[in-house]
C-alpha cells in the first residue's frame, strides 16, 4: 500500500501543478452552479433546501461524468506517450498499485470538487434553509460513486491508447452511453417489458442515482457502482499485465 500512497501523492501533485485541473474544476462548478440556480429558482417565492439538493444531485451527475472523464485521460496515456510507463512498470511496483494509486488521486480531486459545492448549502442555510443531512450526504455519496465509475473508466480508456484525444473520446462517449442507457432504449418503464429492457435499465448509471438523492440508498445501487469501479480497474490492471507480457 505504500507504493499506492506514493503514486497517489505524485498524481495529486501532477494534477495541481498543471492548470487543466483548475480549469476543468471551474468549468464543472460553473455548470453545476447554473443547474443549482435553476432548481433554486424553480419556485418563485419559497424554496426548500432538501428539494433543491435532491434535484441538483439527481441531475449534476452527467456533468460530473464529463468532468472526471476529461481529468483522467492523461493518467496512463501520457505516461505511454512519454515512455515513463515502461519505467513505472519495470520498477518494483505491482500493476494494481499503479492503477489504484491513480484512481485514488482522481477520487481525492473529485471529493475536493464536490466539497466546493457545499457552498450551495451554506448559501441556503444563510437564507434560512434547514437541511436534513441524511438525504444531502446520501446525494453526495451517489455523486461520488458516479464520479468513481467515470474515473475508473477514464483510467481504462487512458490505458488503451497513447493518444489523449482518443482516450477522451472513448471515455466521454462510453460514459454518456452508460448514463443514458436506460432512457435511450427503455421507454416502457423500469419494471415492465422484456428482460433486456430491464437489464439495460439496470446497467444505466442514471437509474441508480435517484435512491441516493432522495435519501434512501439501496444496497443494490451501492453495489452496482462499486462493482463497476472494480470491474473497470480490474480490466485496466489486466491490460497493463498483457502489455507487459506477464
Amino acid at each position, binding site marked *: 500500500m505504500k507504493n499506492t500512497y506514493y503514486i497517489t501523492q505524485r498524481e495529486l501533485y501532477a494534477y495541481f501543478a498543471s492548470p487543466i485541473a483548475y480549469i476543468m474544476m471551474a468549468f464543472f462548478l460553473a455548470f453545476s452552479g447554473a443547474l443549482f440556480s435553476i432548481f433554486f429558482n424553480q419556485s418563485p417565492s419559497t424554496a426548500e433546501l432538501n428539494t433543491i439538493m435532491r434535484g441538483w444531485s439527481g441531475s449534476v451527475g452527467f456533468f460530473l461524468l464529463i468532468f472526471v472523464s476529461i481529468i483522467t485521460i492523461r493518467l496512463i496515456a501520457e505516461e505511454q506517450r512519454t515512455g515513463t510507463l515502461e519505467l513505472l512498470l519495470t520498477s518494483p511496483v505491482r500493476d494494481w498499485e499503479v492503477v489504484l494509486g491513480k484512481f485514488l488521486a482522481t477520487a481525492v480531486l473529485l471529493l475536493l470538487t464536490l466539497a466546493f459545492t457545499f457552498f450551495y448549502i451554506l448559501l441556503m442555510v444563510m437564507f434560512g434553509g434547514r437541511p436534513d443531512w441524511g438525504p444531502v450526504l446520501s446525494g453526495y455519496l451517489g455523486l461520488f460513486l458516479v464520479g468513481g465509475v467515470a474515473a475508473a473508466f477514464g483510467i481504462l480508456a487512458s490505458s488503451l491508447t497513447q493518444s489523449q484525444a482518443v482516450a477522451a473520446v472513448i471515455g466521454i462517449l462510453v460514459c454518456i452511453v452508460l448514463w443514458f442507457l436506460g432512457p435511450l432504449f427503455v421507454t416502457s418503464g423500469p419494471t415492465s417489458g422484456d428482460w433486456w429492457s430491464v437489464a439495460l435499465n439496470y446497467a444505466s448509471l442514471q437509474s441508480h442515482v435517484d435512491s441516493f438523492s432522495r435519501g*434512501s440508498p439501496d444496497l443494490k445501487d451501492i453495489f452496482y457502482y462499486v462493482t463497476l469501479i472494480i470491474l473497470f480497474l480490474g480490466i485496466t490492471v489486466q491490460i497493463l499485465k498483457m502489455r507487459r*507480457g506477464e
Partner: protein
Amino acid sequence: MSRSLIKQIGRLLGFLAAPLLVVVIIGLVAVRRFEWYILLGLLVLAICVAVFAATNPEIWQRRLGRQRVSSTISGIVVIVALLGIIVLANVLLQRTNVQFDLTKNKNFTISDSSVKVLETLKQPVTATIFYSQNTQTQQQSASDLLKQYAARTDKLQVQSINAELDPIAVQRYGIKSDPAVVFEMGTRREQVSSVDEQTLTRALLRLETGVTRRVLITTGHQELSTTVAQTGNSLSTAVQALTDNNFTVEVYNTATGTSTPATSTGAAAPAAATPVNLNPNNDILLIAGPRGKFSDEEKTRITTFLRQGGKAMIAYDIAGNQEAAQATNVNDLLADWKVSFSRGVIVEQDPTKRAQQSPTFLVPDITGSGDITGGLQGQNVFVLQATGINKDPASTANLNELLKTSQNSYLKTTIPPQTAEFEQNDVRGPLVVAASIEQPASQPAPAPNATPATTPGTPGATTAAATTAAATATPAAGGAASGQPLNTRIVLLGSPSVISDQVLSQAIGNNTFFINAMNYLNESANNIVITSRTADNVPFTVNSSQSSLTFWFSFLGLPVIILLIGLYAWWKRR
C-alpha cells in the same frame, strides 16, 4: 500468506471448478430456470476459475507456448471471469431489498402497522401498478414501497403494467385512474389511486377482511353539498379524498331513508335512490353544517343508529344558523352523550393563532396524540367561523379534545356579534373547536345479515371487489359480529369549513385531519392508522436579490475563485 500457498489455493479452486460445473449443468437441466441457487453456483464457479487463472498464469503459458499470446489469453480469461462474477453478483443481489433510510422522519421505512397487516396475509396477493408516461415517478414510488412490502412477506408479488402499452389489461382490471394499484387475492380485487403507505396498507387489509366502509352524507337540511360550489362551501374535495381512500360515498336523504351514489365532480348519478338501512357495522354518517331542523322520525333514525354503535362526523355551521328560532336542532342528536355545540362565534385575539388577519379565521392548537391528531405535528388545521363544543359534567362519554383555541380567544354569544370586543356574557377561551367522543353502544347492533350491505362499486373500487365485500361483509370490521361490542364514535367539528372545498383543497393539515378522523370512525382501521411521515422540509422565503445573488455566486463566483487559486499556484511555480 506465502506466494506458493496462494498458488496452491488457486489450483484447489481450479480443481473444484470442474465438479461444480457438472453440478450446475445438471441443476440447470433439472429446473430449467435460473433459480437463485443456480446463479450462486455460477458465481462460485466464476470465482474459482478467476482465482485459478490469476494465481497460476504459468499453466496457461505452458499450454499456449509463446508468452505474449498466453498472457493476452490469460488476461482475457481473467477479464471475462471478473465480468461474470460482477454480473452474477448483481443479478443475485436483485433478490435482496436492503435500503438505508437516511431521512430524519424515516420517510422510506414502512410502519409497524403495515408489517402487521402483511404478516396476517393468508393467501398470495398480486399487486399490479398501472401507470403511463406521465406517472412514471408515482409508479417508481409505488414500486419502491411495494418492494419493501414484498420483502416482509412471501405472499406478495409486485408487477407493473404500462397502461398505454397494454389497454387490454386496463380494460380487464377496470382501471379508472392513473396511476392505479390493483391488489388481487384469488377472485377478490381492491383498486386504489393513491400510492402512499396508508392507502396501500388499508387496501391490503380490506382485501384480507373483504369489507368496504360506506360514508353517507346527509342531505335535506341545507347541508354542504357534494356538488362543487363557487364559494367553496361544498364537499367535492372531501368526497374525492374519501373515494381515494376506498370509502364508498353516498348522499343520504334522512327524510326518505334513501341514498344515491356521490361523485366528487358533483355530477348527479343517474342511478335511482335506493332504500338504506343504517348499519352500525358498516356505515359512517357525515352531517356537514345542517341549517334546518331534523324531524322526529329523522332524529330517531339517526340516534338509534348511533346508540347501536354507529359512527358519525357532525359539523355545526354557526354562520348559517344565526336565527335561534330557525337554527338546526343537531344538538338533539347528541343528547344521549351530553355534548353540544354552543350558540356563538369564536373570536381569536392571539395574532399567531389566526389566519389572514381575521379574528374568526382560526388556526387552533392541535391537542392530543391519538389516532386523529397524532400525525399532524408541524401542520396547521384551519377553521373558519367556528363555535365551541361543550361537554356536560354529567356525561360519561369519553371526550377527546382535538383542536383548541388560545387563552386569548372568546365566544361571542350575541349572534350576529355587534362588536369584536369581549362582552359580559361572552365565554373566555380556550375553547374546543373539534373533539371526538366515544362510548360503548347502548343498544345491540342488528345482525350483519339482517341488513343488505348495498355496496355499489365506487370509482376507487372494482365491482368485483365491492360485490365480494358485500357478500362477505365480515365481522372483522364490525366488532359486533366478531363478539366485541361496538363503540359509538362521533367526531364533532365547530365549523363545516374544516372539511369544505374552500379549505380542504388547499390545506394539507385539514386533509390529513379529515382522513385521520374518517379512519378513526372506520373502527376496523384502528390497527392500521399510519401516521403520515412527511419530509422534514422547512421552506424559506427567497426574494429577488437573494435569487440573483445565488445565481452569480454559484455560476460565476465559485468558478472564478477556483481559477484564481489555479493562477496563484501557476504563478508560484514559475
